[in-house]
C-alpha cells in the first residue's frame, strides 16, 4: 500500500567490508536504484560535500590498509605456532622517536584534511544569489512549503526550477518538535528547531524527482515523514507555479454531483478547520494545521509523501487515517478519524481528486 517508490530493488553484488570496497559499491550504484544516495550528488553543494568525503575516504582507506596490514603482519609474524611454548623476549618499554613520529604523521594528515574542510564549510554557507525563497515548516509529521515571493503554498512535494539556487528558511511552530530537512542528493541536512530560524540552500542540476525525509527523530511517525523535490526546466516550473496560483476547482453550489456533496462534507465535517482551500471559506490553520489542499490533485502522493494519491489509498485514509500512518490526533498531531461512512468517503474522495 505504501507505494512511495515504484522502482524495485535489484539484487546487487556482495562486497567486502572494507571502506575501499564500500566506495566501489557505492559509486557503482546508479541513483535510480538508490534515490537517496549521498554519493550521487545532483547539485553544486552536494557535489562539494561528495568530493570532500571521497577525498577523506581515500585517505582513510590508505590509513586503514596500512594499520590493518600492520596488525595482521605483526600478529602473523610474532604469533606462537601450534604447540610452541612462549619464548622469553626483550622487555622493551618504548621508543621516543617512534612516539614522536606517530604523533606527527596523523597530525599532518589531519592538517591536510582540515584545509579543504574549512573551505567547503564556508563555501556551502555562502548566501545564494537570485534564489527562489521557500519557507519550509516542519510539522509532526509532514512538510509545508510556502513560496515567499510566488504566493504558492503546498505540502510534502516541493517543485523547483533546475540550475537555480533555492534558499530554504526552516521553521516550525513553537509547539512542535525538532525535525531535519534532508534531500541527500541535493544537499546536506539542516535541523528545523522550534524558536530558531535555520537556513539552507539547495539546487538541482537536472530535472527529476529527488527523495528525502525527516532526519531528526520527531516522535511517533518520524519514519513516515518523507518528502520529494521535483526539479523542472524553468518553463515547466513557471507553468507549475501558474497552475498552483489558479483558483481551486470548487464545484458550484448548484451542482448535484458527488464532488459537490464532497465539498459540502468537507465543510460540514470540519475538514476545513485544519485544511485550507485557497479562495474559499476553508481557511485551515488552527491548532492542528493540515496540508493546504487547494491543488491536492496535482500531487503524486499524500500524508507525508507516504502514499500514492489514488482512490483506493484515499478511501482507506479517510476511513481511518491512524491505521495507515500512526498519529496522535487527540494531541493535535495528525488527522483525526472523522467516523465517515462509505458514501461520505466516496463523495470526499471524488471532491479531493477533483482539486486539480
Amino acid at each position, binding site marked *: 500500500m505504501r507505494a512511495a*517508490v515504484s522502482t*524495485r*530493488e535489484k539484487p546487487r553484488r556482495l562486497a567486502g*567490508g572494507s*571502506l575501499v570496497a564500500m566506495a566501489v559499491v*557505492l559509486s557503482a*550504484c546508479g541513483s535510480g536504484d*538508490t*534515490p*537517496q*544516495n*549521498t554519493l550521487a550528488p545532483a547539485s553544486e553543494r552536494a557535489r562539494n*560535500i561528495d568530493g*570532500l*568525503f571521497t577525498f577523506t575516504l581515500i585517505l*582513510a582507506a590508505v590509513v586503514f590498509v596500512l*594499520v590493518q596490514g*600492520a*596488525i595482521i603482519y*605483526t*600478529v602473523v609474524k*610474532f*604469533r*606462537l605456532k601450534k604447540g610452541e611454548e612462549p*619464548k622469553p*623476549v626483550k*622487555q*622493551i618499554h*618504548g*621508543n621516543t622517536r*617512534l*612516539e614522536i613520529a*606517530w*604523533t606527527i604523521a*596523523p*597530525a599532518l594528515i*589531519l592538517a591536510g584534511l582540515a584545509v579543504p*574542510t*574549512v573551505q567547503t*564549510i564556508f563555501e556551502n*554557507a555562502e548566501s545564494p544569489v537570485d534564489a527562489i525563497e521557500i519557507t519550509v515548516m516542519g510539522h509532526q509529521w509532514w512538510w509545508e512549503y510556502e513560496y515567499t515571493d510566488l504566493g504558492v503554498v503546498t505540502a510534502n512535494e516541493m517543485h523547483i526550477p533546475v540550475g537555480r539556487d533555492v534558499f530554504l528558511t526552516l521553521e516550525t511552530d513553537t509547539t512542535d*518538535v525538532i525535525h*531535519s530537512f*534532508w534531500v541527500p542528493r541535493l544537499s*546536506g541536512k539542516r*535541523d528545523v*528547531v*522550534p*524558536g*530558531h530560524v*535555520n537556513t539552507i540552500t539547495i539546487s538541482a542540476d537536472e530535472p527529476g524527482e529527488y*527523495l*528525502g*525525509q*525527516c*532526519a*531528526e*527523530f520527531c*516522535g511517533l511517525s*518520524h519514519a513516515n515523514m518523507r518528502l520529494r523535490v521535483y526539479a523542472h526546466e524553468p518553463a515547466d516550473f513557471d507553468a507549475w507555479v501558474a497552475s498552483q496560483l489558479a483558483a481551486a476547482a470548487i464545484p458550484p453550489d448548484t451542482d448535484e454531483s458527488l464532488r459537490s456533496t464532497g465539498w459540502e462534507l468537507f465543510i460540514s465535517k470540519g475538514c476545513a478547520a485544519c485544511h485550507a482551500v485557497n479562495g474559499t471559506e476553508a481557511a485551515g490553520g488552527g491548532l492542528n494545521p493540515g496540508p493546504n489542499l487547494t491543488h491536492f490533485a496535482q500531487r503524486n502522493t499524500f500524508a507525508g509523501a507516504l502514499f500514492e494519491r489514488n482512490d483506493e489509498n484515499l478511501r482507506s485514509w479517510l476511513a481511518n487515517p491512524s491505521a495507515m500512518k500512526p498519529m496522535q490526533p487527540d494531541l493535535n498531531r495528525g488527522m483525526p478519524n472523522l467516523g465517515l461512512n462509505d458514501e461520505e468517503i466516496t463523495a470526499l474522495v471524488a471532491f479531493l481528486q477533483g482539486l486539480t
Partner: protein
Amino acid sequence: MATVVEAPPISPPGAQPKGGIWAWLTSVDHKKIGIMYGVAAMAFFILGGIEALVIRLQLAVPEGSVVAEDAYNQLFTMHGTTMVFLFVMPISAAFGNYFMPIMIGARDVAFPRLNALSFWIFLAGGIFISSSFFLGGFPDGAWVGYSPLATQAEVIRMDFWALGLLILGVASLLGAVNFITTIFTMRAPGMTLFRMPVFVWMQMVVAFLLAFSLPLVTVGLFQVILDRNFGTLFYDAATGGDPVLWQHLFWLFGHPEVYILILPAMGIVSEVLPTFSRKPLFGYQFVVFAGAAIGFLGFGVWAHHMFTAGLGPVAETAFGLMTMTIAVPTGIKIFNWLGTMWGGSVSFTTPMLFAVGFVAMFTIGGLSGVTHSIVPADTQQHDSYYVVAHFHYVLFGGAVFGIFSGVYYWFGKVFGRLLDEPLGKLHFWLMFIGFNLTFAPMHILGLNGMPRRIATYGDGLGWNLWNLVATVGSFIIALSILVFLVNAVRSYRKGEPAGADPWDGRTLEWSTTSPPADYNFAEVPIVDAIDDFWYKKYGEDDNHLPVRLDTDPRDLSAREPDVEHHVHLPSPSYYPILLAVGIVTLAYGFLWLPIGYLAMAAGLGIMLWAIFGWALEDIDHPMGDGNGHGDGGDDGGGRDAAAELVGSGAEGTSE
C-alpha cells in the same frame, strides 16, 4: 549467568558475614560488589540485545510489520539507554570495582559502604527504567532525549527516562568520587601514579570525566522533569525557551560519556596485550597521556553532535578542527598497542583474540569518526545509519570486544576457574563475523540516505539487501552470546582451575589467590616498578632476556594472614541497599501524584532510616560519622574501616 549468587568456591578466613543471599545483599566487599555489577550488567546486556534483535527483525525487509511505530520507538530508545547506561558503564564499574583496588595493592576501595550504595542505586535505577515496560511503555524519545520532544510527550514514559537517568547519575557520581579517592589515597607503598597499570589510569580518567560531566546532564534532566511536571519553560519555544540548550547540556555530558564507555576497554586491552605478548606495554607514558588527553579533549568537542543544528560556519569550523585533534591521541594508542605486540611472543588465547579484535575494529570506528569531523560531510552522515555504523564500531567493536577480552582474561581470577578456550574462540569468531556483517553494511545504508530511528522504510530505496544482511549478522552475534553464556555457566561449575597466575601475568592481581581472599593480600605488597609482579618473577640474563627467578613471589602472598585479627574488614551493612530502595520508592511515588505522595513519604522514611542507621552503625567508631547524609555522599564509617585496613595491613608487614 544471571543467577550466580553463590559464594565463590574458596571461603576465606577472617570476619565473614552470614552466607547465602544475605551476604551478597549486605556485602561491602569490592569484589562481591564487582561481581554483582558484572552479573547485573550482563542481564541488562541480554535485555538490550533482545531489543536490538527485534529492531533488526523489523528492519529486515521494507515495510516491516514485526512491531508498530510506537513499539519500535520504545525499543530503540531503550536499546540505546540500556546498552550505554545499564551495560557498558556498569560492566566497566564491575572491572573497576573488582580489579582497581587489587591492582594498586589495596584491600578495598576508600568507602566500602558507599561502594555498595553505588551498586544498589545503579541496580534500582536500572530496574526503575526497565519497569516502565509494564507501566505504560518504555521511554520513546530516543536515548538522547531531545527536547521539546521529551517535554512534549504527555505519557509518563519520558519521566521514567529522566528520573531513571538521574538515579543512575547519582550511582555513577558516588562511584567516581570513591574511585578517585581510592586511587589517590590507597595505593600500596611504592605504587606511584606512574607505576599504576594503565587499566587503573583509565579508570581514574573515567572517574574524573564522570565527576565533571554528569552534573551537566543532571541539570538538563532536572529541567526536563521540571518542564514536564511543574510548568517551567526551559524548553518551551513559545515563551523563549531554547531546545538547543538541551543539546548543549546533553552533549557536554554525552561526548565525555563516549570516552567513559571506551576508556575502560582501552585499559583492559592495555593489560591483555602485554601479558600475551610477554612484553611490557610499549610507550606506557604515552598511552597514559594519550588517554588523559582524549578525556580532556572530550570536553571540547560536544558540538560536533550538532553540526546540522545551525551553529554557523565559525563554530562549526572550530568544533570540526577540535574533533580532528582527538584522532592524534587515539592513533598514539593504536600504534603503541601494535608496538607492544611487535617483537613479542604472542599467544592467541581468547582474551588476546578479543584484544586484537578490539584494536582492528576500533581503528575502523576511529577512521569513520574522522569523516564526521569533516563538517560538510557530516551534514550528510548525521543521524543516518552511517553514524549508527560508526558508533557501533567504537562501542561494540571497541568497548564490547574490550570487555569480553577482560571477561576471558579475569574470569579465572574472579571465579577460580578459567573459561573454556575452544568455546571462547568459537564465541570470538562468531561475534567477529556477526558484528561485521551487522554493522559494516550500515555504512553503506547511511551513505545511501537511510536515516536512523525510522521504524520502517519504503521499498525501492536500495536499502533492502544490506538491511537483510545486517539482520542476519545480528543473529550471529546473538548466537555468539549464547555460546558465551554456555561457556560461562559450564566453566563456573567445572572449568579448569585457574591457579593464582594462569597467564604468567604482570600486575598485582596475579600475585594473589584465585579468587582472592576477602582481604586481597595477606601482606600489603611493596611495589618497585611498573609490572612489579613480573619483575619479582623474572630477572634478566646477559642478553637482557627474562629468566625465571628461583623465588616465587606467590609464596608470600598466598599464605594465611599472620594474625587473623590484624586485618579488619569492614562489616557488612544493609543500609546501602535500604537507601537505594528508599530512593527508588521516592521516584515511583513521584510518577503517580497525588496518590504517589504516600509512596514518596514511605521512600523518604526509608531513606531517613537508612541514613541514620548508616551514620550510627559503626559502633567501634562513634566519631566516624555525623554527616552521613545523602547529599554530601560522605561515608565516615567506611573511611574508618578503610583506613584501618591500610593501617593494620601495614602493621602486618612491619612485624
